[in-house]
């Protein structure tokens, strides 16, 4: 059989892989956080003297000890590394206790005396949006972190012409990423004066900015080295960076290495979540089944701090009508401050919420019009050359919605099985249902950020290669994908290429490894570096031997008639002998996008991906228990780089989507996240999930040098509506909120 490739598999399967908490430095101290018990308050006083007397306790660190900025944030600098005065969340950290062991630090927590002056919290985003609501962050002058809109055509006129108008409301739950490895950081001040940071994170450069800001030093004075990351899913950005910043602060003050490893309870309490949304949709249709208009009002509870709420909700805005062509659109999307736990990036990034609404809405509309849901979708989906709701013409890549839809219909035998659905038949003990959902998704960051990435290929004198890119391993296999691409480009076996241990001091910032952009951006940079490297080698050989290299294959350099010129190793030796470095720095920069914030029009993303997922399930008509029978996904991923890792993204994404649909919920009570650990928060277990199938659709993208696009998030954004649709087909009831709890 063909085997999977991962450069870290051996270390991970033997327990040798070093995650941050596995590392110990000499003379290391341990810090733990002290949380606010109130969601909104003023910190009047904090007395650490009794805690300081506890065994092993070395220091109590508070905001007063911060040499740099107390607050930081990726968009709005609103997050206090440690609270100086204003408390906005029960995840706020008031102090750090540093001790010789972690247990000693934890034991000292109850000895901290804290005086708070309670303020009335705002826990409902609708309350926060009222004109007379108190402003939670006075320097920001508004309880909105952002407001985005789309204005296209004329909804009022379209509604007058419509034969049918449907209005529906949907809401989604707050979701915890549930990376199995809780946050962890180790920081120490190196002898050259650099603050060295080891940690578990998705974006070392963002961590570096947080740490430098907190310490009040320059970026060159902080070096972040991410260690093996035990899962991220978008969740190891801000919170992971904050944990690093706090460990760095302690190490800075105490001049000793300091480790902070979070317990699951702290992680659940403090770390940001996927935004809960409330979505009101009104859709106008004609009786031929064409969507004429969509009007939507979407409110995202961003919680106490901004994080990347404006970017998350921007994607929701651009994709607010799902993958359908609609000529008349009015979408208003609000990101709102409250005193709940804050929300930020999570796999999907604003699309799982939207798809949950829109993919049910189209089925509701189809049924009202007496059409089947597939015909209705076919009529309205974007096709080659279609214009999106933001005015982008989809003509620079293959629009493959029909292809992914057909693949899933065929594989699942949908049309036949759909006839077997129970629709709540009272004579059946068990209800059967099949359902599906489709989507398109803008690739990479779009107007959310600057999109550029780089790679370094550095061939050593013995012909072996060191590779480095500015995408980071979160566990998804990013490094392995980069090695595979380099190996193909250079015609070298995988074992001759080693991925360098990443560091923020080695390579320029390439943005966060989020938005399913790792393969397209990093892979693009690797290919561009390979082209430069091959050019350096080719020119050197031309100059010295007069021969023209046409191909790099099987560790050999060949001319255009496939004749051997020399081996790779000989070519590299020749370079070094002639004082030429076989070293290349490659950059990949996708085409610029455009966006008009006023009208919500523009070319939002440089390319798009298309996907379809289906599920079969059974519902017990007595208890309402749902049993998933199987799940299928087809995605156009552009080009397959690493088939096993790709499948892993499909399966993991579908599983997380199933969790979103049926099991996962993080309600807040008086601002405090209710679930505390995996006994009361339930990511799916093996017995909750069915067998899954992954179908690869390949339409290489012209903009992507490797042809590949992305899969991490597309795989995670449509299983919840597929399940909701299947549940409707089984029970005859629509469920408008997540997670779905079936009422009998």
């Amino acid at each position, binding site marked *: 059989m063909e085997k999977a490739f991962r450069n870290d598999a051996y270390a991970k399967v033997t327990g040798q892989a070093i995650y941050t908490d596995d590392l110990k430095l000499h003379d290391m101290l341990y810090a733990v956080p002290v949380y606010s018990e109130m969601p909104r308050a003023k910190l009047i006083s904090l007395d650490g003297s009794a805690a300081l007397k506890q065994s092993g306790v070395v220091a109590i660190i508070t905001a007063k000890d911060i040499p740099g900025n107390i607050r930081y944030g990726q968009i709005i600098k609103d997050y206090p590394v440690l609270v100086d005065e204003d408390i906005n969340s029960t995840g706020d950290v008031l102090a750090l206790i540093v001790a010789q062991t972690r247990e000693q630090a934890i034991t000292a927590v109850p000895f901290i005396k804290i005086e708070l002056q309670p303020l009335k919290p705002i826990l409902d985003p609708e309350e926060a949006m009222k004109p007379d609501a108190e402003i939670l962050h006075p320097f920001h002058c508004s309880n909105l972190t952002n407001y985005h809109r789309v204005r296209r055509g004329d909804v009022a006129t379209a509604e007058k012409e419509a034969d049918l108008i449907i209005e529906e409301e949907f809401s989604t739950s707050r979701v915890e*990423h549930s990376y*199995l*490895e809780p946050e962890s950081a180790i920081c120490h001040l190196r002898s050259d004066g650099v603050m060295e940071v080891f940690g578990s994170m998705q974006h070392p450069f963002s961590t570096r900015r947080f740490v430098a800001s907190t310490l009040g030093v320059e970026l060159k004075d902080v070096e972040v080295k991410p260690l093996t990351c035990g899962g991220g899913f978008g969740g190891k950005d801000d919170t992971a960076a904050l944990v690093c910043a706090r460990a760095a602060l302690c190490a800075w003050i105490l001049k000793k290495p300091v480790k902070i490893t979070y317990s*699951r309870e702290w992680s659940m309490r403090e770390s940001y979540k996927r935004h809960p949304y409330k979505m009101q949709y009104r859709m106008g249709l004609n009786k031929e089944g064409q969507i004429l208009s969509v009007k939507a009002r979407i409110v995202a509870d961003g919680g106490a701090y901004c994080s990347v709420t404006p970017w998350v909700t921007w994607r929701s805005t651009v994709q607010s009508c799902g993958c359908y062509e609609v000529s008349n659109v009015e979408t208003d999307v609000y990101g709102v401050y409250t005193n709940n736990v804050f929300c930020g990036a999570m796999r999907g990034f604003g699309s799982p919420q939207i798809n949950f609404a829109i993919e049910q809405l189209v089925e509701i509309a189809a049924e009202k019009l007496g059409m089947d849901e597939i015909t209705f979708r076919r009529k309205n989906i974007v096709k080659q050359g279609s214009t999106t709701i933001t005015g982008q013409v989809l003509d620079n890549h293959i629009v493959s919605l029909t292809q992914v839809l057909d693949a899933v219909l065929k594989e699942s035998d949908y049309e036949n099985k759909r006839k077997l659905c129970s629709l709540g038949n009272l004579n059946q003990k068990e209800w059967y249902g099949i359902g599906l959902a489709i989507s398109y998704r803008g690739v990479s960051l779009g107007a959310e950020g600057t999109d550029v990435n780089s790679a370094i290929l550095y061939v050593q004198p013995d012909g072996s290669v060191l590779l480095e890119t500015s995408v980071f391993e979160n566990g*998804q296999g990013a490094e392995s994908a980069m090695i595979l691409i380099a190996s193909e480009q250079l015609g070298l076996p995988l074992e001759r290429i080693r991925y360098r241990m990443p560091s923020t001091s080695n390579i320029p910032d390439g943005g966060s490894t989020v938005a399913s952009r790792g393969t397209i951006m990093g892979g693009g940079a690797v290919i561009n570096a390979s082209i430069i490297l091959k050019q350096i080698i080719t020119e050197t050989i031309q100059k010295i031997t007069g021969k023209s290299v046409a191909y790099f294959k099987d560790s050999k350099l060949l001319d255009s008639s496939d004749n051997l010129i020399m081996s790779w190793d000989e070519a590299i030796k020749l370079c070094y002998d002639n004082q030429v470095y076989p070293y290349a720095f490659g950059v990949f920069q996708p085409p610029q996008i455009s966006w008009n914030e006023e009208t919500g029009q523009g070319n939002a993303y440089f390319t798009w991906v298309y996907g379809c997922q289906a599920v079969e399930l059974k519902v017990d008509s007595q208890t309402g228990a749902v049993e998933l029978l199987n799940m299928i996904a087809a995605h156009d991923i552009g080009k397959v780089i690493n088939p096993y*890792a790709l499948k892993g993204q499909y399966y993991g994404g579908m599983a997380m989507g199933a969790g979103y649909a049926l099991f996962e919920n993080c309600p807040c009570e008086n601002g405090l996240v209710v679930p505390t650990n995996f006994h009361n928060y339930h990511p799916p277990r093996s017995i909750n*999930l069915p067998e899954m199938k992954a179908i690869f659709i390949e339409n290489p993208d012209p903009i992507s040098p490797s042809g590949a696009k992305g899969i991490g998030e597309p795989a995670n954004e449509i299983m919840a509506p597929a399940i909701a649709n299947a549940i409707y087909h089984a029970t005859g009831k629509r469920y408008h909120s997540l997670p779905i709890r079936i009422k009998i």
Partner: protein
Amino acid sequence: MITVNGFNYYDYDLERKLSLWLREDLSLTGTKIGCDIGVCGSCTVLIDGEPKLSCRLKLKDVENCNIITIEGIALPDGTLHPVQQAFIDAGAIQCGFCTPGMVLTAYALLNKNPHPTRQEVRLAIRGNLCRCTGYQQIIDAVMLAADRLSSN
């Protein structure tokens, strides 16, 4: 006395938590801590061949026991156990945080039941959370290991 991966230990604090003892005192950091309350399976070790959660045990609970951790199942020359090799070959590893616990749980299952069905594998690993893989390739890996072990 407690035996860990073939080495005998005599001097320890009976009240010490097994997971911490392994990680902190013996530097066997392959045993992971995901929840610390006995619900995620990351800290699974084999105690007299049975998969057990080391975050729920104290050393007094494992006196005179034979413990195997993830570091203890490959051959001394580094050759992987067939279960480990199958996890690699079937693509069952992503972030790897659940992997040690999964491998040990699967190892114990195959010792008892060398020819499990996919459903039996599903049941056996229900205590081991994995957020990355959806379990599909982990089950593939255990089936592959069962195949390879029985054809040897």
